């Protein structure tokens, strides 16, 4: 039996619940990650992923593998569109990152606090970016997508994605300079010195 994403998508057209279950379990983590990174909120990311999968379940012929489309690329577009719609409705980023849901990789309480502060700054900086820059950054940096695939998801050319990435990084740099923040390298050096 064809257990590729595209094969499962074809079975879902015939109302195959098992195929849907396999596809959902295979990709939930990946798409939840994207939704969270775009929205910065666990509850909303949860809703977006549910809505996206249920939309696909109710209208499976929206995805056309016959035309050579890849499920993940197509579904990235669905999830990012739903997330961006929510962001537009929200107008401004709330700045309420739920740190408690995030993994703490630091050993000491001080380090945990520092990490959270840095994550807060980083989230704020990323959410200040225009939506397409933010999307390009998330797809290429965090989802590990090629520029070509990201271009397909965003619906622009490859050159445009490269430009979006460059501008996103420049925007982040500017944000950090404006806020007078040291780079993580400097922070880590300072931490090492303190510990030493």
């Amino acid at each position, binding site marked *: 039996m064809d257990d590729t994403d595209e094969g499962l998508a074809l079975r879902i057209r015939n109302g195959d619940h098992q195929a849907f279950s396999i596809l959902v379990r295979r990709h939930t983590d990946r798409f939840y990650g994207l939704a969270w990174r775009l929205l910065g909120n666990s509850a909303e990311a949860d809703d977006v992923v549910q809505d996206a999968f249920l939309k696909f379940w109710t209208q499976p012929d929206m995805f056309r593998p016959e035309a050579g489309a890849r499920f993940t690329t197509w579904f990235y577009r669905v999830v990012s569109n739903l997330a961006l719609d929510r962001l537009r409705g929200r107008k401004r980023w709330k700045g309420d990152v739920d740190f408690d849901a995030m993994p703490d990789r630091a050993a000491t309480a001080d380090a945990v606090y520092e990490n959270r502060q840095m994550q807060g700054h980083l989230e704020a900086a990323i959410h200040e970016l225009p939506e397409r820059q933010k999307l390009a950054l998330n797809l290429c940096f965090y989802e590990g997508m090629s520029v070509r695939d990201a271009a397909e998801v965003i619906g622009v050319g490859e050159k445009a994605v490269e430009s979006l990435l460059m501008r996103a990084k420049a925007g982040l740099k500017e944000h*950090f300079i404006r806020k007078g923040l040291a780079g993580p390298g400097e922070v880590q050096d300072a931490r090492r010195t303190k510990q030493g």
Partner: protein
Amino acid sequence: MHDEQNKDKDIDQWLSMRHAPQTPDDLADRIVHRAVRTPQRASRAFASGLFQEMAGLFIVPRPAFALAVCLVIGVGGGWMTTALPDTTTQTSAETTSFDVIVMEEDWI
């Protein structure tokens, strides 16, 4: 140039410190359970197939040929109508009323 590369590296380092929270354990289960209770919509492929079939009834296999035939029939029909002798005949009532008008108005 070297400084720029360092800055880029620094930004990448910043970015790599960003971690998404773990996916809720029951998210996939919730999605699957909701799907079980949600019926699939009638396939758009079926609807579009039906529409295409209906539209197919009106498709002319050789449009140029069909247009030419229609033109010939139209022109021929029109020519036949005008070429026919005027077969309209006056009824006696019409003749009488004409005569009355002529007499009264003193046309002739």
